[in-house]
C-alpha cells in the first residue's frame, strides 16, 4: 500500500516540528510517507469564502495528483488542510456534475476515491498497532488532550460519534503511559480565526483553555493542529496578559509526544522549536 503525505504550508513553516516529529515516528514504525509531488495550497484561508470553484479546485488538484501517483491513502496532518480536502472529497462525491466540471478545470482525471486520513486516523491505523513494541520511555504524567474545532467536524462528514467530547487522542496518550485528564475544553475555540487580526481575543479564548488545563493538573497540552499550537504556544504572551499571570504549561503535538515516548531525542521531536520551553523529562 502506498501512503501519500500532504504537508501543507504550516508544516513547512510555523510548525516544522510537527512535520519532523511525524516523519520521525513514521520512520521508527517503518512506514514510508511519500510527499505529494508539486502540491499546492489547500485553500484553507479565504478561498472557500470567496470563490466556490477555486475552493474546490485547490484541494481537488492535490487529490488528483495523489491519485495520479497511485496513492491508496493520503495523510494530512494539518487539521485545516484536512478539513478542506475532506470537505472537497465529500462535496464532489455528492455532486457528480460538479466533479466533472472541477476535473475539467484541472485538466486531470479525478476518481475521488483516495482515503484521506487526519493525523489521529493515521496514528490509530498505522502507529498505534506497533506502539507496544516501540514505547521505550512511557510519559507518566497528566496531559490535557486538546482537539480544537477542525479535527472532528463537521459531524455529518466525519461521522464522529462523540464530536462534542472526542476520545481518540486520549486513548493514544494512554497507550504512551500518560494519564489524559477529564476536562471540558477539548473542543473549545482557540480563536484561530483572529490569530492575526485580534490577538487579544485569542488571548482570552486560548487563555481559558490553558488555565483550565493547568487548574486540572495537566503537565502538558497535547494538540494535533498547527493553528491550535501557535495560538496556545506562540500567543502565550497574549494569554498571560489576559490571565495576568505567567502560564508555563507546554504545548506539544501528539506526534512529538509519541516521538518522546519512543525514546527519540527532544531534537528529533523538534521540541526546541517551541516558544514555551518543554521540559517534561523531569517527570521521568
Amino acid at each position, binding site marked *: 500500500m502506498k501512503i501519500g503525505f500532504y504537508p501543507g504550508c504550516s508544516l513547512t513553516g510555523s510548525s516544522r516540528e510537527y512535520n519532523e516529529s511525524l516523519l520521525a515516528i513514521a520512520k521508527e514504525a517503518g512506514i514510508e510517507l511519500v510527499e505529494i509531488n508539486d502540491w499546492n495550497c489547500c485553500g484553507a484561508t479565504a478561498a472557500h469564502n470567496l470563490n466556490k470553484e477555486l475552493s474546490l479546485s485547490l484541494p481537488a488538484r492535490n487529490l488528483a495528483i495523489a491519485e495520479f501517483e497511485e496513492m491508496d491513502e493520503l495523510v494530512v496532518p494539518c487539521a485545516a488542510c484536512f478539513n478542506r480536502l475532506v470537505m472537497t472529497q465529500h462535496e464532489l462525491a455528492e455532486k457528480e456534475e460538479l466533479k466533472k466540471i472541477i476535473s475539467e478545470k484541472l485538466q486531470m482525471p479525478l476518481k475521488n476515491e483516495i482515503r484521506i486520513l487526519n493525523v489521529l486516523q493515521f496514528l490509530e491505523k498505522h502507529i498505534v498497532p506497533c506502539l507496544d513494541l516501540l514505547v521505550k520511555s512511557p510519559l507518566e504524567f497528566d496531559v490535557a488532550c486538546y482537539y480544537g474545532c477542525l479535527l472532528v467536524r463537521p*459531524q*455529518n462528514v466525519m461521522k464522529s460519534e*462523540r*464530536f*462534542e*467530547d472526542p476520545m481518540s487522542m486520549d486513548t493514544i496518550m494512554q497507550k504512551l503511559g500518560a494519564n489524559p485528564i*477529564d*476536562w*471540558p475544553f477539548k473542543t*473549545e475555540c482557540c480563536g484561530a480565526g483572529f490569530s492575526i487580526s485580534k490577538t487579544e481575543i485569542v488571548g482570552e479564548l486560548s487563555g481559558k483553555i490553558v488555565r483550565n488545563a493547568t487548574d486540572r493538573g495537566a503537565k502538558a497540552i497535547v494538540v494535533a493542529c498547527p493553528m491550535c499550537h501557535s495560538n496556545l504556544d506562540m500567543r502565550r504572551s497574549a494569554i498571560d496578559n489576559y490571565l495576568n499571570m505567567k502560564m508555563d504549561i507546554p504545548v506539544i503535538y501528539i506526534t512529538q509526544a509519541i516521538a518522546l515516548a519512543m525514546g527519540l531525542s527532544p531534537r528529533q521531536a523538534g521540541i526546541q522549536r517551541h516558544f514555551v520551553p518543554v521540559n517534561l523529562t523531569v517527570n521521568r
Partner: protein
Amino acid sequence: MSKIGVFICHCGENISATVDVARVAEAAGQIEGVAFSTDYKYMCSDPGQTMIKQAIKEKGLTGVVVGSCSPRMHEPTFRKACQEAGLNPFMCEMANLREHCSWVHDKSEATTQKAIDLVRTLVEKVKLNKPLYSIKVPVTKTALVIGGGIAGIQASLDIANAGHQVILVERDPSIGGHMSQLSETFPTLDCSQCILTPRMVEVAQHPNIKLMTYAELEKLEGSIGSFKATIRKKAKSIDEDLCNGCGTCTTKCPTKKIPSEFNTGLGMRTAIYVPFPQAVPNKPVIDKENCSYYQKGKCKVCEKVCPTGAIRFDQEDELVELEVGAVVIATGFDIMQPSGFPEYGYGKYKDVITGLQFERLASASGPTLGEIRRPSDGKIPEKIVFVACAGSRDPAKGIPYCSKICCMYTAKHAMLYQHKVHHGKSYIFYMDIRAAGKNYEEFVRRAIVEDEVNYIRGRVSKIYEENGKLIVKGVDTLSSAKPVEIEADMVVLASAAVANPGAEALAQKMHVSYDSYNFFSEAHPKLKPVETNTAGIFLAGACQAPKDIPETVSQASGAASKVIILFSKDELSRDPLIAVVNRSPAPVFSTCVGCFMCASACPYQAIGEELITNRQGKVIKKVAKVNPGLCQGCGTCVAFCRSKSIDIQGYSNEQMCAEVIALLNHE
C-alpha cells in the same frame, strides 16, 4: 365482451395540475373493451360516485377503473359505489394517478403518458377480474390491550364499559406507566397519582377486565376478528391468590440496595418488591437477577416471614394462549439515554439529571418526599438550569423530531422548583416555546411572569464541573446574542422522548409497520390516526409518537371506539383475495400434482391435503387444498407452483401477466 368504464379524477387540482386528465380519459376511451370514459373534479364526492353508478346502470358496465388517488385511500369507497349500482365490488380497480404520478412528476407529456399507461394497465386487469364474494369470519369479542399506562388503562376501561371482555397485559409488576411517576401535571398542576390511581383501581376491579401484569406478548397469529395471542406470564415467584399484600416480605428482604426503576434510580428497592405504594396489583414480585436465593442459593427470608406462605421459588414462566378479536397497542415511550451527549456529563456528574428524575424529586411519594434536593449531597439547589430539547430536534443526535411534551413539562418543572425553593433562581435554555394546547400558553406565561423563571433562547454547548459548581455554557441568541455561562447547582435535561427499546421486536411480532424511529405507524396520517396497516390492530398513546396525557387519553378512547365498532357485529366480511387450487375435468381433476411445496412455504399453514376419489371411493389423487379461513392471500404459494395449479383471486396469473403486457406495450 367486457364493457369497462374509466373514470379519471382531477382530485381538485392535485392530479389535473400535472396530468392532462381530459387526454387520459380520451385515450382510455380508445382502449378496446372500454365502453365509457370520462373525467371529473372529485370522483370520490357524491356527484362523482353517482356518475359512476349511473354509467354502470346505463351502459351496463362489466368493470370499472377509477384513475385517482392511491387504492390504499379510496378503494373501499369506489368498490362500495359499484356494489350499490349492482356491480360486483371486485370488478372495480384503481389506477394510482396521484401518489404514483401527479404528485411525483412535473407537468409534462411524459407524465400524462404515464397516467395513460397506468390506466390501460388496470383496464387490462379488470377485463380479467372475476366477481368475488367476501368471506365471513366470526368476531371474538375480546380485546387484547398491550401496555398498562394511561393509554392502555383508558382503552381497557372504555371497551370494558361497552360490555366487552378485555385482557390488559403489562410488562412491569404494576400498571400505571410513566404517568404514575409524574409529580404534578400541566397545565393544571393537579397531582398525577391522585387522578390516575382511581383509574388503576377501577381496572383491577372491573368484571370485564382480566389484568395480566409482569407479562409480555410472545406471539400473535390469525387476523382481524380472530387473533390467537400467546402471552408469557413471567414468574413472579409468589402465589397471587394466597398473597394478601401485607408487605412483610418487602420490609424484611435483606437485599435492599437495588436502584428502583420507579424512582429512576434515585431511590432503592428490595429484591422482592412492589414498585410503588399505590401499585396495582399491590402484590410483590421477586426480581430473580438481584435475589440472593436465586443468585447464591440461600436466604429465603421472605418465605420464612410470609404469613400466608405465598412465596413460590419454583414458579416458572407460563405461556397462555388467548383468542382475541382485536388488539390495542399502548406500549408508550421511553426517554433517550442522556449518555447520548457526553458534553452534558450526564452519568459523570450526579447533579445532572433527566426530566423524569426531576419528576420523582418533585413528587410527594418520591425519594425526597417532594423536596428538591440534589442527588450528590442532598443540598437544596440555589441555582437550577433546565435544558430543553436535550436530544430532540437535533439531527446530529439522530432525533430530528420534536418530543412535544418537553416545553410544557420544563415550564412546569421550573414552576414547581420556584414554588418549593422561593429564593432559588431557575433558568431554561430553549429553542422555541411550543405551547399549543388549551391553557398551555397561559401556563408558560405564568412561569415567566409570576414565577420569574429566566427563559434563555439558545442551546447549551457544554456542561462541566468546576469547584463544586456545574458550569453551563450556552448562548443567548435573543437578548444579548452573546455566549452565557451559568454556575448552577443542578441541571435538568429534558431528554428526548424515544420509542420503547422493545418496540421494533413487538411490531415485527404483530406485523404492523413502524417508522424509522421505531414509533408505530398509523394507517393514514390524518384520517386513520388510531388504525395500523394491519386490520384489527389499533394504536393508543405515545407508542405512535410523543404525546401528552390529554392527547394520549383521547387517542386511547378513539382506539377503544374502533374496537367497540368492530365488536358491534357478530361476524365481519374479509376480502376474498385468497389462494385456490384449480379444478379441471376428469381424468385430471386438478393439475395439482401434490408435491406440497406450497404447503411448506405457506406462512399460515393454510394449505392441507384433499383426496380425490372415484365413484367407487378409491383414491385417485392427492392434491393441495387451501383453507379459506386461514389463508391471508400473500400468494407465496402461487409463485412456487411449477404447474401453476394454485392461483390467487384478485392477483391471478392471468391478471398479473395482462398488467405486465399492457404496461410495457404502449405507443
